[in-house]
């Protein structure tokens, strides 16, 4: 009899424990709920897809390099390595680049000249805005007033002067040289610049922007500074 009672109690207690645990699980649900709507999720998906395709193209490139090494390993591995280094140097902006592109001349607006206003240098904010809007086009090489833009280039105000790579940009007029990957891209970018509302932003600062004709062989200076990469680390492995 006693045993029977305890077995009954055990079964009931088992059910109670189960119910309490389930209740605990339910109440302790993470309270951060997913509140993204379809469009936010689609946007995230598109970002991920873009990343996916970037990674794929990177894999393709690396495969190419590998093929090249394999093909060259018997003949002269040195040559293949040198080529790769040269390629990387050109990607990093350490060599002169030639390609289809155009010049953008930033000069004082005619009105400002006519009124005899003091011509002030371009502000770093405006320059950054300009570059950001251009950078929506991929694969561009640029130099501002002879200073090649590389990945680590900084545009900032140093002692009241706008600088690129810590070298001051002269008071307008100065030129921004842009080289795009293909003739078509260069044309697109030039058309974009001609119709861009950016020109109004320049006009507010008493500056006028002139976009030159597209040249087949626009030359962009090499980056002449030192690229410091003290934070880069070897990932190890291949």
């Amino acid at each position, binding site marked *: 009899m006693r045993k029977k009672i305890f077995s*009954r109690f055990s079964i009931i207690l088992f059910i109670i424990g189960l119910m309490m645990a389930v209740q605990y699980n339910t109440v302790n649900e993470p309270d951060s709920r997913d509140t993204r709507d379809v469009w936010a999720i689609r946007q995230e998906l598109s970002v991920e897809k873009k990343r996916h395709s970037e990674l794929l193209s990177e894999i393709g490139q690396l495969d190419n390099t590998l093929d090249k090494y394999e093909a060259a390993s018997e003949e002269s591995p040195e040559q293949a390595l040198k080529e790769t280094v040269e390629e990387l140097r050109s990607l990093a902006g350490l060599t002169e680049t030639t390609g289809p592109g155009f010049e953008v001349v930033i000069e004082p607006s005619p009105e400002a000249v006519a009124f005899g206003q003091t011509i002030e240098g371009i502000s770093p904010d405006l320059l950054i805005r300009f570059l950001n809007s251009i950078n929506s086009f991929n694969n561009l090489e640029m130099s501002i007033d002879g200073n090649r833009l590389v990945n680590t280039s900084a545009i900032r105000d140093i002692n009241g002067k706008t600088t690129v790579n810590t070298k001051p940009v002269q008071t307008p007029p100065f030129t921004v040289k842009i080289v795009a990957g293909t003739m078509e891209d260069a044309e697109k970018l030039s058309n974009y610049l001609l119709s861009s509302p950016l020109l109004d932003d320049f006009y507010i600062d008493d500056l006028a922007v002139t976009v030159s004709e597209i040249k087949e062989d626009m030359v962009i200076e090499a980056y002449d500074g030192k690229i410091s990469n003290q934070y880069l680390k070897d990932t190890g492995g291949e």
Partner: protein
Amino acid sequence: MWLSVLGLLLGISLGLLTDMQIPSEYANYLSIAVLASLDTLFGGIRAHLQHMYDDKVFVSGFFFNIILAAGLAFLGVHLGIDLYLAAIFAFGVRLFQNIAVIRRLLLAKWTNKKETEESLG
């Protein structure tokens, strides 16, 4: 007695480990069901201590109370009356009463035992 504790631990660990969840709309019903079952459990312990434990009453009371409480809460939701409060109140009061009775019974038992030991010793 240890068998019962083992049953409780087994139930809790099974529930936590399987990470079972119910939709949050039903969490109210489950909480009332837990309360009802606790009430029945303590009622059963009390009955056992008072030597009037009945297997049928205990098991039927367990399930009936749970169903009644959940049904009352369900009805309350549909009628717009907080009927689950009635269930919580009833079960809560009974729970405290039962626990108080159990405490007294255990105390009396303990005192009896001590007195017997003293008289024997």
